[in-house]
């Protein structure tokens, strides 16, 4: 039992994931410190999403433990969640609300006082601030979801395929935002099929499916 340390470190020890009859991964460990980006790579079906969901605490590994600041997630989940921002496969926004309403709700839930109009403008959604999200394209909806990262402050960002449906320019913008987050002491876990370059950031790679 390690003492809860104040350092923002997300570590996993000896994780095992079994889906049905297949063992996706076994004895997997990682350690992500402040300012580090962990890139999870692997072919389809290798368990990338499962790993990220375990890191969030949404699913339980059959063996092993995840620790945030030294405290096991099973016990200290609340403290972790107040510092976590997660964007999964589904954008996690309501189609019947406008982008600004979505973000305002996110801020009521997770905190943050950032100027929402400003963020949406920078994400290229300035013209659609008052359009219900159901009328936006898939890429635009994902941008609204990712706008949350800037609207609500969090230390740990866990992102599952964040660049899906985003165009080149958007990818470059987002990469910059993520690098900025890491440089200012945040942590990032993400999966992606794209080749991304986080300049001057500490990047670890985790390969699954071997």
């Amino acid at each position: 039992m390690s003492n809860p340390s104040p350092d923002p470190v997300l570590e996993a020890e000896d994780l095992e994931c079994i889906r049905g009859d297949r063992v996706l991964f076994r004895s997997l460990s990682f350690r992500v410190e402040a300012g580090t980006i962990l890139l999870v790579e692997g072919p389809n079906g290798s368990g990338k999403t499962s790993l990220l969901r375990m890191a969030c605490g949404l699913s339980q590994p059959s063996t092993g433990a995840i620790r945030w600041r030294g405290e096991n997630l099973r016990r200290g989940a609340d403290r972790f969640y107040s510092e976590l921002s997660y964007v999964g496969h589904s954008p996690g926004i309501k189609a019947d609300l406008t982008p600004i309403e979505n973000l305002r709700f996110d801020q009521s839930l997770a905190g943050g006082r950032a100027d929402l109009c400003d963020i949406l403008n920078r994400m290229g959604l300035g013209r659609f601030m008052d359009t219900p999200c159901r009328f936006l394209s898939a890429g635009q909806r994902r941008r609204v979801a990712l706008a949350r990262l800037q609207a609500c402050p969090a230390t740990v960002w866990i992102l599952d395929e964040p660049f899906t449906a985003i165009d080149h320019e958007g990818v470059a913008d987002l990469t910059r935002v993520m690098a900025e987050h890491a440089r200012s002491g945040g942590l990032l876990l993400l999966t992606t099929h794209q080749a991304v370059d986080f300049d001057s950031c500490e990047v670890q790679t985790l390969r699954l499916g071997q």
Partner: protein
Amino acid sequence: MEPSTLTALWALMRRDLTLAYRHRSELLNPLLFFVIVVSLFPLGISPEAKTLQTVAPGVVWVAALLANLLSLDLMFRTDFEDGTLERFLLSPHPLPLLVLAKTAAHWIVVALPMIVFAPVLGQLMFLRPDAYWALLATLILGTPVLSLIGGIGMGLTVGLRRGGVLLSLLILPLYVPVLIFGATAVDAAGAGLDVSGHLSFLGALLLLAITLAPLATSAALRVSLS
């Protein structure tokens, strides 16, 4: 700075009510179902006032129960499908309280119109004049219990593809106590008897449901989304 839980709960309720309002063409569906089911009974049994009067309390209550059951889907399904439900599980705010807020919003949208309209249905079924206030009282106490228990079933089946019929099988046995006390209270009131005991029991069920059901629903949601 993190917002207080109370702010979050209030924001969640407002969000759900806003979403319901944006779909206001569908808002009346549970109410319409309520009316249609009640109307089926005179057609299926007999239009005679005397017969209908005997079965009125049970019929109105069963119809309210079924209408509530059918609209449970609204509670978590869209949130599950667009990924917002996951985010509630990842929130530092206690999940049982978030569930309670959602259940409250669901009750306002689904049950409140039914309660308001119930006296009209009572008229259709020739409900005894002394029974009307009991009908309202039992519905006000009982429908939240139905929504709360329904939430548990919804939590267990939200991730399943054809969860609808399974949900009914899981929930209807648990609805029986509410139905028994609600319907017999209305019946007894119509005959001029004292129903304070019935209402106390419904009140006790409500308190039990408010404290325990959100816990079960949270556990169920965590299992469904794991």
